[in-house]
Protein backbone atom coordinates (compact mmCIF):
# COMPACT_ATOMS: atom_id res chain seq x y z
CA UNK A 1 0.00 0.00 0.00
CA UNK A 2 1.26 3.49 -0.85
CA UNK A 3 0.81 6.47 1.43
CA UNK A 4 -1.64 7.99 -1.03
CA UNK A 5 -3.70 4.82 -0.99
CA UNK A 6 -3.63 4.94 2.79
CA UNK A 7 -4.90 8.53 2.75
CA UNK A 8 -7.78 7.54 0.48
CA UNK A 9 -8.65 4.74 2.82
CA UNK A 10 -8.70 7.08 5.82
CA UNK A 11 -10.80 9.56 3.87
CA UNK A 12 -13.32 6.86 3.04
CA UNK A 13 -13.70 6.15 6.75
CA UNK A 14 -14.08 9.86 7.54
CA UNK A 15 -16.75 10.10 4.82
CA UNK A 16 -18.82 7.64 6.83
CA UNK A 17 -18.01 9.16 10.22
CA UNK A 18 -18.70 12.74 9.16
CA UNK A 19 -21.15 12.43 6.24
CA UNK A 20 -22.01 16.14 6.18
CA UNK A 21 -18.41 17.20 5.50
CA UNK A 22 -17.01 18.15 2.11
CA UNK A 23 -13.85 16.06 1.79
CA UNK A 24 -12.85 17.20 -1.69
CA UNK A 25 -10.25 19.69 -0.47
CA UNK A 26 -8.80 18.23 2.70
CA UNK A 27 -5.25 19.49 3.11
CA UNK A 28 -3.02 16.56 4.01
CA UNK A 29 -0.60 18.56 6.14
CA UNK A 30 -3.27 20.38 8.22
CA UNK A 31 -4.80 18.84 11.32
CA UNK A 32 -8.11 17.20 10.49
CA UNK A 33 -9.87 18.91 13.40
CA UNK A 34 -8.84 22.30 12.08
CA UNK A 35 -10.56 21.78 8.73
CA UNK A 36 -13.41 19.40 9.53
CA UNK A 37 -16.02 19.24 12.25
CA UNK A 38 -14.55 16.25 14.05
CA UNK A 39 -14.57 15.75 17.80
CA UNK A 40 -12.90 13.26 20.10
CA UNK A 41 -15.81 10.83 19.72
CA UNK A 42 -15.33 10.91 15.96
CA UNK A 43 -11.69 9.94 16.36
CA UNK A 44 -12.83 7.00 18.49
CA UNK A 45 -15.07 6.05 15.57
CA UNK A 46 -12.11 6.25 13.18
CA UNK A 47 -10.11 3.99 15.48
CA UNK A 48 -13.04 1.57 15.66
CA UNK A 49 -13.46 1.49 11.89
CA UNK A 50 -9.74 0.84 11.36
CA UNK A 51 -10.13 -2.11 13.73
CA UNK A 52 -13.37 -3.40 12.19
CA UNK A 53 -12.57 -2.95 8.52
CA UNK A 54 -8.85 -3.56 8.46
CA UNK A 55 -7.78 -5.23 11.68
CA UNK A 56 -5.56 -2.27 12.52
CA UNK A 57 -5.08 -1.47 16.22
CA UNK A 58 -4.26 2.07 17.29
CA UNK A 59 -3.26 2.20 20.98
CA UNK A 60 -4.65 5.16 22.90
CA UNK A 61 -1.19 6.67 23.38
CA UNK A 62 -0.82 6.82 19.60
CA UNK A 63 -4.13 8.50 18.71
CA UNK A 64 -2.12 11.66 18.16
CA UNK A 65 -0.70 9.99 15.04
CA UNK A 66 -4.12 10.38 13.41
CA UNK A 67 -4.03 14.17 13.60
CA UNK A 68 -3.65 14.86 9.87
CA UNK A 69 -3.85 12.85 6.65
CA UNK A 70 -0.06 13.01 6.32
CA UNK A 71 0.49 11.75 9.85
CA UNK A 72 -2.13 9.07 9.33
CA UNK A 73 -0.29 7.89 6.22
CA UNK A 74 3.09 7.94 7.98
CA UNK A 75 1.72 5.94 10.89
CA UNK A 76 -0.78 3.59 9.26
CA UNK A 77 0.90 2.64 5.96
CA UNK A 78 3.57 0.45 7.64
CA UNK A 79 0.81 -1.19 9.70
CA UNK A 80 -1.21 -1.97 6.60
CA UNK A 81 1.85 -3.32 4.82
CA UNK A 82 2.82 -5.41 7.82
CA UNK A 83 -0.65 -6.92 7.88
CA UNK A 84 -0.48 -7.57 4.13
CA UNK A 85 2.85 -9.32 4.66
CA UNK A 86 1.29 -11.62 7.25
CA UNK A 87 -1.53 -12.74 5.00
Amino acid sequence: MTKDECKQLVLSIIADIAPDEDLSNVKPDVRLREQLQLDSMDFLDIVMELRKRHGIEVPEAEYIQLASLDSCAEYLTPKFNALAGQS
Partner: protein
Amino acid sequence: MATQNSLAHGRCVADSLLLRRMKPPRIVLTGIGLTSPNGNTLSEYRQNLLNGVSGIELIEVRYMGAQPAGVCHFDPLKYQKKKDVRIGTRAGSISIFCAREALADCGLDWDRVDKTRVGIYLGITEHGNVETENEIYNLSLFKHDTRFWTHHHNPRTVANNPAGEVSLNLGITGPAYTLGAACAAGNLGIIHAAQMLQLGEVDLALAGGVSESVGTFGIFAAFKSQGALASHPDPTKASRPFDKKRNGIVVSEGGCIYTMERRDDALARGARIYGEVGGYCVNSDATDYVLPNAVRQAECIRKAIAHAGLTPAEIDIVNTHATATPQGDIQECLAIGEVFAGCADVNINNTKSFIGHCMGAAGALELAGNLPSFDDLIVHPTINVDELDPQCALSGLVLNQPRTAKRVDAILNNSFGMLGINSALIIIRHRT
Protein backbone atom coordinates in the same frame (compact mmCIF):
# COMPACT_ATOMS: atom_id res chain seq x y z
CA MET B 1 -38.60 14.46 68.10
CA ALA B 2 -42.20 13.29 68.13
CA THR B 3 -43.32 16.92 68.56
CA GLN B 4 -41.14 18.01 65.65
CA ASN B 5 -42.59 15.25 63.47
CA SER B 6 -46.11 16.20 64.48
CA LEU B 7 -45.44 19.82 63.63
CA ALA B 8 -43.93 18.87 60.31
CA HIS B 9 -46.87 16.62 59.56
CA GLY B 10 -49.30 19.35 60.51
CA ARG B 11 -47.53 21.79 58.23
CA CYS B 12 -47.66 19.30 55.35
CA VAL B 13 -51.38 18.80 55.84
CA ALA B 14 -51.91 22.56 55.93
CA ASP B 15 -49.85 22.99 52.75
CA SER B 16 -51.78 20.23 51.08
CA LEU B 17 -55.14 21.77 52.00
CA LEU B 18 -53.95 25.16 50.79
CA LEU B 19 -52.85 23.67 47.49
CA ARG B 20 -56.21 21.97 47.07
CA ARG B 21 -58.05 25.24 47.63
CA MET B 22 -55.90 27.05 45.09
CA LYS B 23 -57.25 26.72 41.60
CA PRO B 24 -54.43 25.40 39.42
CA PRO B 25 -53.78 27.15 36.13
CA ARG B 26 -55.59 25.71 33.12
CA ILE B 27 -53.35 23.96 30.60
CA VAL B 28 -53.86 23.90 26.85
CA LEU B 29 -52.42 22.18 23.79
CA THR B 30 -51.20 24.72 21.25
CA GLY B 31 -49.11 22.80 18.73
CA ILE B 32 -48.91 19.26 17.37
CA GLY B 33 -46.00 17.48 15.70
CA LEU B 34 -46.36 13.86 14.78
CA THR B 35 -45.18 11.00 12.68
CA SER B 36 -47.41 8.00 12.29
CA PRO B 37 -47.37 4.94 10.03
CA ASN B 38 -50.14 6.63 8.02
CA GLY B 39 -49.15 10.28 8.10
CA ASN B 40 -46.50 12.81 8.99
CA THR B 41 -48.78 15.77 9.63
CA LEU B 42 -51.99 16.05 11.59
CA SER B 43 -54.02 16.74 8.45
CA GLU B 44 -52.59 13.80 6.51
CA TYR B 45 -53.01 11.50 9.50
CA ARG B 46 -56.55 12.66 10.20
CA GLN B 47 -57.58 12.32 6.57
CA ASN B 48 -56.32 8.74 6.49
CA LEU B 49 -58.20 7.96 9.71
CA LEU B 50 -61.40 9.28 8.17
CA ASN B 51 -60.76 7.49 4.86
CA GLY B 52 -60.01 4.12 6.45
CA VAL B 53 -56.38 4.08 5.27
CA SER B 54 -54.16 1.72 7.23
CA GLY B 55 -50.44 2.40 7.63
CA ILE B 56 -49.43 -1.20 8.27
CA GLU B 57 -46.98 -2.94 5.95
CA LEU B 58 -44.74 -6.00 5.92
CA ILE B 59 -41.17 -5.49 7.11
CA GLU B 60 -38.24 -7.84 7.57
CA VAL B 61 -37.57 -8.42 11.26
CA ARG B 62 -34.19 -9.87 12.22
CA TYR B 63 -34.38 -13.63 12.79
CA MET B 64 -38.15 -13.60 12.22
CA GLY B 65 -38.73 -12.73 8.57
CA ALA B 66 -41.64 -10.67 7.28
CA GLN B 67 -43.98 -9.30 9.92
CA PRO B 68 -46.78 -6.73 9.78
CA ALA B 69 -45.60 -3.49 11.33
CA GLY B 70 -46.16 0.24 11.34
CA VAL B 71 -43.22 2.24 10.04
CA CYS B 72 -43.01 6.02 9.88
CA HIS B 73 -41.78 7.46 6.60
CA PHE B 74 -40.66 10.93 7.63
CA ASP B 75 -37.39 12.54 6.58
CA PRO B 76 -35.02 12.77 9.57
CA LEU B 77 -32.74 15.06 7.57
CA LYS B 78 -35.40 17.76 7.61
CA TYR B 79 -34.15 18.72 11.05
CA GLN B 80 -30.93 16.78 11.62
CA LYS B 81 -27.49 16.51 10.09
CA LYS B 82 -26.50 13.13 8.70
CA LYS B 83 -23.90 12.83 11.43
CA ASP B 84 -26.46 13.39 14.18
CA VAL B 85 -28.69 10.72 12.65
CA ARG B 86 -25.71 8.35 12.59
CA ILE B 87 -24.73 8.98 16.19
CA GLY B 88 -28.22 9.27 17.64
CA THR B 89 -31.12 6.87 17.84
CA ARG B 90 -34.26 6.34 15.81
CA ALA B 91 -36.28 7.41 18.85
CA GLY B 92 -34.17 10.56 18.98
CA SER B 93 -34.87 11.32 15.32
CA ILE B 94 -38.59 10.74 15.78
CA SER B 95 -38.56 13.00 18.83
CA ILE B 96 -36.68 15.79 17.07
CA PHE B 97 -38.97 15.64 14.05
CA CYS B 98 -42.09 15.80 16.21
CA ALA B 99 -40.76 18.51 18.50
CA ARG B 100 -39.72 20.73 15.59
CA GLU B 101 -43.02 20.19 13.81
CA ALA B 102 -44.94 21.05 17.00
CA LEU B 103 -42.93 24.24 17.48
CA ALA B 104 -43.52 25.24 13.86
CA ASP B 105 -47.22 24.55 14.35
CA CYS B 106 -47.68 26.45 17.61
CA GLY B 107 -46.75 29.85 16.20
CA LEU B 108 -44.22 30.82 18.85
CA ASP B 109 -41.26 32.95 17.85
CA TRP B 110 -38.73 30.34 18.90
CA ASP B 111 -35.78 32.74 18.87
CA ARG B 112 -37.49 34.79 21.58
CA VAL B 113 -38.39 31.84 23.81
CA ASP B 114 -36.40 31.49 27.04
CA LYS B 115 -34.86 28.04 26.56
CA THR B 116 -34.25 27.67 30.28
CA ARG B 117 -38.02 27.67 30.83
CA VAL B 118 -38.85 24.93 28.34
CA GLY B 119 -39.39 21.37 29.54
CA ILE B 120 -39.27 18.20 27.46
CA TYR B 121 -41.32 15.31 28.82
CA LEU B 122 -41.53 12.25 26.60
CA GLY B 123 -43.26 9.00 27.38
CA ILE B 124 -41.47 5.80 26.40
CA THR B 125 -42.48 2.19 26.65
CA GLU B 126 -38.84 1.17 26.64
CA HIS B 127 -35.65 2.56 25.21
CA GLY B 128 -32.38 0.96 24.25
CA ASN B 129 -33.56 -2.40 22.97
CA VAL B 130 -32.91 -1.44 19.37
CA GLU B 131 -29.41 -0.16 20.00
CA THR B 132 -28.47 -3.06 22.26
CA GLU B 133 -29.72 -5.67 19.81
CA ASN B 134 -27.87 -4.01 16.95
CA GLU B 135 -24.66 -3.90 18.93
CA ILE B 136 -24.90 -7.51 20.06
CA TYR B 137 -25.52 -8.50 16.44
CA ASN B 138 -22.49 -6.45 15.40
CA LEU B 139 -20.43 -8.10 18.12
CA SER B 140 -21.44 -11.54 16.89
CA LEU B 141 -19.68 -10.70 13.62
CA PHE B 142 -16.45 -10.27 15.61
CA LYS B 143 -16.59 -13.43 17.73
CA HIS B 144 -18.09 -11.46 20.61
CA ASP B 145 -14.85 -9.56 21.16
CA THR B 146 -15.99 -6.54 23.20
CA ARG B 147 -13.27 -4.34 21.67
CA PHE B 148 -15.77 -3.99 18.82
CA TRP B 149 -18.57 -2.66 21.06
CA THR B 150 -19.29 0.96 20.20
CA HIS B 151 -18.59 3.82 22.58
CA HIS B 152 -21.93 5.27 21.41
CA HIS B 153 -23.82 2.54 23.24
CA ASN B 154 -24.29 4.35 26.56
CA PRO B 155 -25.52 7.72 25.28
CA ARG B 156 -27.79 5.88 22.86
CA THR B 157 -29.35 3.65 25.49
CA VAL B 158 -29.75 5.85 28.54
CA ALA B 159 -33.46 6.18 29.20
CA ASN B 160 -33.45 9.95 28.71
CA ASN B 161 -31.97 9.65 25.20
CA PRO B 162 -35.02 10.74 23.15
CA ALA B 163 -35.62 13.84 25.29
CA GLY B 164 -31.89 14.57 25.46
CA GLU B 165 -31.56 14.51 21.69
CA VAL B 166 -34.36 17.09 21.43
CA SER B 167 -32.57 19.23 23.99
CA LEU B 168 -29.34 19.06 21.97
CA ASN B 169 -31.08 19.74 18.68
CA LEU B 170 -33.05 22.75 19.88
CA GLY B 171 -30.68 24.15 22.50
CA ILE B 172 -33.26 23.70 25.24
CA THR B 173 -31.66 23.93 28.67
CA GLY B 174 -34.70 23.28 30.84
CA PRO B 175 -35.58 19.81 32.17
CA ALA B 176 -35.53 17.11 29.50
CA TYR B 177 -36.35 13.56 30.43
CA THR B 178 -38.50 10.58 29.61
CA LEU B 179 -41.19 8.85 31.55
CA GLY B 180 -41.15 5.07 31.42
CA ALA B 181 -44.75 3.92 31.65
CA ALA B 182 -45.03 1.01 29.23
CA CYS B 183 -47.80 1.64 26.73
CA ALA B 184 -49.49 4.23 28.91
CA ALA B 185 -46.47 6.47 28.44
CA GLY B 186 -47.82 8.82 25.77
CA ASN B 187 -50.58 9.95 28.09
CA LEU B 188 -48.10 10.19 30.95
CA GLY B 189 -45.92 12.64 29.04
CA ILE B 190 -48.88 14.99 28.59
CA ILE B 191 -50.13 14.58 32.15
CA HIS B 192 -46.69 15.18 33.61
CA ALA B 193 -46.20 18.26 31.47
CA ALA B 194 -49.54 19.65 32.64
CA GLN B 195 -48.43 19.18 36.24
CA MET B 196 -45.06 20.83 35.66
CA LEU B 197 -46.75 23.80 33.98
CA GLN B 198 -49.23 24.08 36.84
CA LEU B 199 -46.37 24.02 39.34
CA GLY B 200 -44.64 26.80 37.42
CA GLU B 201 -41.56 24.67 36.80
CA VAL B 202 -41.58 25.59 33.11
CA ASP B 203 -43.43 28.01 30.82
CA LEU B 204 -43.57 25.82 27.74
CA ALA B 205 -43.61 22.05 27.51
CA LEU B 206 -42.83 19.72 24.63
CA ALA B 207 -44.70 16.65 25.71
CA GLY B 208 -46.00 13.39 24.37
CA GLY B 209 -44.57 10.01 23.54
CA VAL B 210 -42.26 8.23 21.13
CA SER B 211 -41.34 4.72 20.07
CA GLU B 212 -38.78 3.11 17.81
CA SER B 213 -39.88 -0.42 18.60
CA VAL B 214 -40.09 -1.78 15.05
CA GLY B 215 -36.28 -1.87 15.12
CA THR B 216 -36.14 -4.54 17.78
CA PHE B 217 -36.81 -8.20 17.05
CA GLY B 218 -37.09 -8.80 20.79
CA ILE B 219 -40.43 -7.04 21.11
CA PHE B 220 -41.86 -8.96 18.14
CA ALA B 221 -40.45 -12.25 19.41
CA ALA B 222 -41.69 -11.69 22.96
CA PHE B 223 -45.22 -10.96 21.78
CA LYS B 224 -44.99 -14.03 19.54
CA SER B 225 -43.90 -16.18 22.48
CA GLN B 226 -46.74 -14.71 24.49
CA GLY B 227 -49.22 -15.61 21.75
CA ALA B 228 -49.95 -11.92 21.29
CA LEU B 229 -48.33 -11.02 17.94
CA ALA B 230 -50.71 -10.26 15.09
CA SER B 231 -50.57 -12.18 11.83
CA HIS B 232 -52.69 -11.83 8.72
CA PRO B 233 -52.06 -12.41 4.98
CA ASP B 234 -52.93 -8.75 4.38
CA PRO B 235 -50.86 -6.52 6.68
CA THR B 236 -53.42 -3.72 6.48
CA LYS B 237 -55.93 -6.06 8.13
CA ALA B 238 -53.58 -7.42 10.79
CA SER B 239 -54.55 -4.91 13.48
CA ARG B 240 -58.20 -5.65 14.23
CA PRO B 241 -59.32 -4.71 17.73
CA PHE B 242 -62.79 -5.96 18.71
CA ASP B 243 -63.00 -8.30 15.71
CA LYS B 244 -63.72 -11.93 16.48
CA LYS B 245 -60.66 -13.06 14.50
CA ARG B 246 -58.17 -10.69 16.09
CA ASN B 247 -54.99 -12.47 17.06
CA GLY B 248 -52.65 -9.94 18.59
CA ILE B 249 -50.63 -6.75 18.41
CA VAL B 250 -49.09 -5.09 15.36
CA VAL B 251 -45.85 -3.51 16.53
CA SER B 252 -45.37 0.05 15.29
CA GLU B 253 -43.13 3.04 15.74
CA GLY B 254 -44.27 6.62 15.98
CA GLY B 255 -44.19 9.87 17.80
CA CYS B 256 -46.41 12.71 18.81
CA ILE B 257 -45.31 15.80 20.70
CA TYR B 258 -47.49 18.71 21.76
CA THR B 259 -46.55 22.19 22.76
CA MET B 260 -48.36 22.82 26.02
CA GLU B 261 -48.78 26.09 27.82
CA ARG B 262 -50.71 27.68 30.61
CA ARG B 263 -53.96 28.89 29.12
CA ASP B 264 -53.38 32.51 30.11
CA ASP B 265 -50.01 32.53 28.34
CA ALA B 266 -51.51 30.98 25.23
CA LEU B 267 -54.40 33.45 25.14
CA ALA B 268 -52.05 36.38 25.71
CA ARG B 269 -50.12 35.55 22.56
CA GLY B 270 -53.24 34.72 20.56
CA ALA B 271 -52.32 31.07 20.11
CA ARG B 272 -54.56 28.57 18.39
CA ILE B 273 -55.75 26.12 21.03
CA TYR B 274 -56.42 22.50 20.06
CA GLY B 275 -57.91 21.58 23.41
CA GLU B 276 -57.57 21.90 27.15
CA VAL B 277 -56.44 19.30 29.65
CA GLY B 278 -59.71 18.57 31.44
CA GLY B 279 -58.69 15.83 33.80
CA TYR B 280 -56.72 12.65 34.15
CA CYS B 281 -55.91 9.71 36.32
CA VAL B 282 -53.03 7.27 36.55
CA ASN B 283 -53.31 4.16 38.67
CA SER B 284 -51.97 0.63 38.93
CA ASP B 285 -53.53 -2.83 38.84
CA ALA B 286 -51.09 -4.46 41.26
CA THR B 287 -52.30 -7.83 40.00
CA ASP B 288 -50.19 -9.14 37.10
CA TYR B 289 -47.15 -8.47 34.91
CA VAL B 290 -49.09 -8.46 31.67
CA LEU B 291 -52.77 -9.28 32.17
CA PRO B 292 -55.02 -6.21 32.39
CA ASN B 293 -57.48 -5.62 35.19
CA ALA B 294 -60.89 -4.27 34.20
CA VAL B 295 -61.74 -3.17 37.74
CA ARG B 296 -58.69 -0.91 37.99
CA GLN B 297 -59.17 0.36 34.44
CA ALA B 298 -62.75 1.35 35.27
CA GLU B 299 -61.53 2.99 38.47
CA CYS B 300 -58.94 4.94 36.46
CA ILE B 301 -61.54 6.14 33.94
CA ARG B 302 -64.00 7.12 36.66
CA LYS B 303 -61.36 9.09 38.56
CA ALA B 304 -60.28 10.92 35.40
CA ILE B 305 -63.88 11.89 34.68
CA ALA B 306 -64.32 13.09 38.26
CA HIS B 307 -61.04 15.00 38.06
CA ALA B 308 -62.40 16.79 35.01
CA GLY B 309 -65.58 17.65 36.92
CA LEU B 310 -67.67 15.73 34.41
CA THR B 311 -70.02 12.78 34.38
CA PRO B 312 -69.66 9.78 32.05
CA ALA B 313 -72.60 11.09 29.98
CA GLU B 314 -70.57 14.22 29.23
CA ILE B 315 -67.79 12.26 27.53
CA ASP B 316 -68.35 12.31 23.77
CA ILE B 317 -65.49 10.19 22.44
CA VAL B 318 -63.74 7.32 24.15
CA ASN B 319 -60.57 6.43 22.29
CA THR B 320 -59.77 2.93 23.44
CA HIS B 321 -56.40 1.45 24.18
CA ALA B 322 -57.45 -1.94 22.75
CA THR B 323 -54.46 -3.63 21.10
CA ALA B 324 -56.32 -6.54 19.48
CA THR B 325 -55.22 -9.17 21.95
CA PRO B 326 -58.07 -11.57 22.67
CA GLN B 327 -58.14 -10.90 26.43
CA GLY B 328 -57.03 -7.28 26.56
CA ASP B 329 -59.85 -5.99 24.39
CA ILE B 330 -62.46 -7.82 26.46
CA GLN B 331 -61.12 -6.42 29.72
CA GLU B 332 -61.18 -2.86 28.43
CA CYS B 333 -64.69 -3.34 27.07
CA LEU B 334 -65.79 -4.57 30.47
CA ALA B 335 -64.35 -1.44 32.06
CA ILE B 336 -65.87 0.92 29.50
CA GLY B 337 -69.20 -0.89 29.54
CA GLU B 338 -69.39 -0.52 33.28
CA VAL B 339 -68.45 3.19 33.41
CA PHE B 340 -70.56 4.24 30.44
CA ALA B 341 -73.61 2.08 31.04
CA GLY B 342 -76.63 4.09 29.98
CA CYS B 343 -74.60 6.73 28.12
CA ALA B 344 -76.37 6.43 24.79
CA ASP B 345 -74.44 9.12 22.94
CA VAL B 346 -70.86 8.18 23.72
CA ASN B 347 -68.76 7.31 20.66
CA ILE B 348 -66.11 4.64 21.12
CA ASN B 349 -63.29 4.16 18.62
CA ASN B 350 -59.80 2.76 18.24
CA THR B 351 -56.82 4.15 16.36
CA LYS B 352 -54.55 1.10 16.58
CA SER B 353 -56.68 -0.57 13.92
CA PHE B 354 -55.05 1.88 11.46
CA ILE B 355 -51.54 2.32 12.81
CA GLY B 356 -50.87 -0.68 15.03
CA HIS B 357 -49.52 -0.27 18.50
CA CYS B 358 -47.09 2.64 18.60
CA MET B 359 -46.13 1.73 22.16
CA GLY B 360 -44.77 4.79 23.98
CA ALA B 361 -46.26 7.06 21.34
CA ALA B 362 -49.67 5.41 21.35
CA GLY B 363 -51.48 7.61 23.87
CA ALA B 364 -50.27 10.91 22.45
CA LEU B 365 -50.65 9.88 18.81
CA GLU B 366 -54.11 8.37 19.20
CA LEU B 367 -55.29 11.48 21.01
CA ALA B 368 -54.05 13.67 18.14
CA GLY B 369 -56.11 11.67 15.66
CA ASN B 370 -59.23 12.58 17.59
CA LEU B 371 -58.64 16.25 18.42
CA PRO B 372 -59.93 17.52 15.05
CA SER B 373 -63.32 16.12 16.10
CA PHE B 374 -63.77 19.26 18.20
CA ASP B 375 -63.99 21.15 14.91
CA ASP B 376 -65.68 18.75 12.47
CA LEU B 377 -67.70 16.62 14.93
CA ILE B 378 -66.66 13.53 12.96
CA VAL B 379 -65.51 10.49 14.91
CA HIS B 380 -63.01 8.31 13.12
CA PRO B 381 -63.92 4.63 13.15
CA THR B 382 -62.32 1.40 14.24
CA ILE B 383 -61.50 -0.45 11.04
CA ASN B 384 -61.07 -4.14 10.27
CA VAL B 385 -64.09 -5.23 12.27
CA ASP B 386 -65.61 -7.84 9.97
CA GLU B 387 -67.30 -9.78 12.72
CA LEU B 388 -67.69 -7.98 16.02
CA ASP B 389 -66.73 -10.09 19.01
CA PRO B 390 -69.90 -10.29 21.13
CA GLN B 391 -67.75 -9.75 24.21
CA CYS B 392 -66.62 -6.41 22.75
CA ALA B 393 -70.02 -5.28 21.49
CA LEU B 394 -70.21 -1.91 23.20
CA SER B 395 -73.19 0.07 22.00
CA GLY B 396 -71.20 3.19 21.11
CA LEU B 397 -68.55 1.55 18.93
CA VAL B 398 -67.90 3.40 15.70
CA LEU B 399 -67.26 0.55 13.29
CA ASN B 400 -65.54 0.78 9.90
CA GLN B 401 -67.11 4.10 8.85
CA PRO B 402 -66.79 7.54 10.45
CA ARG B 403 -69.76 8.84 12.38
CA THR B 404 -70.93 12.41 12.90
CA ALA B 405 -71.43 13.03 16.59
CA LYS B 406 -74.17 15.14 18.11
CA ARG B 407 -71.59 16.93 20.18
CA VAL B 408 -67.83 16.72 20.81
CA ASP B 409 -66.84 18.63 23.90
CA ALA B 410 -64.84 16.01 25.77
CA ILE B 411 -62.50 13.26 24.54
CA LEU B 412 -61.32 10.49 26.84
CA ASN B 413 -58.10 8.81 25.83
CA ASN B 414 -57.28 5.44 27.40
CA SER B 415 -53.74 4.07 27.49
CA PHE B 416 -52.77 1.06 29.55
CA GLY B 417 -49.50 -0.77 29.91
CA MET B 418 -47.64 -3.77 31.22
CA LEU B 419 -47.03 -4.13 34.93
CA GLY B 420 -50.55 -2.86 35.32
CA ILE B 421 -50.21 0.87 34.67
CA ASN B 422 -53.42 2.59 33.57
CA SER B 423 -53.92 6.11 32.34
CA ALA B 424 -57.02 8.02 31.29
CA LEU B 425 -56.66 11.53 29.93
CA ILE B 426 -59.53 13.87 29.14
CA ILE B 427 -59.12 16.74 26.72
CA ILE B 428 -62.00 19.18 26.56
CA ARG B 429 -63.06 21.70 23.96
CA HIS B 430 -61.46 25.02 24.71
CA ARG B 431 -63.86 27.85 25.32
CA THR B 432 -62.71 31.41 25.73
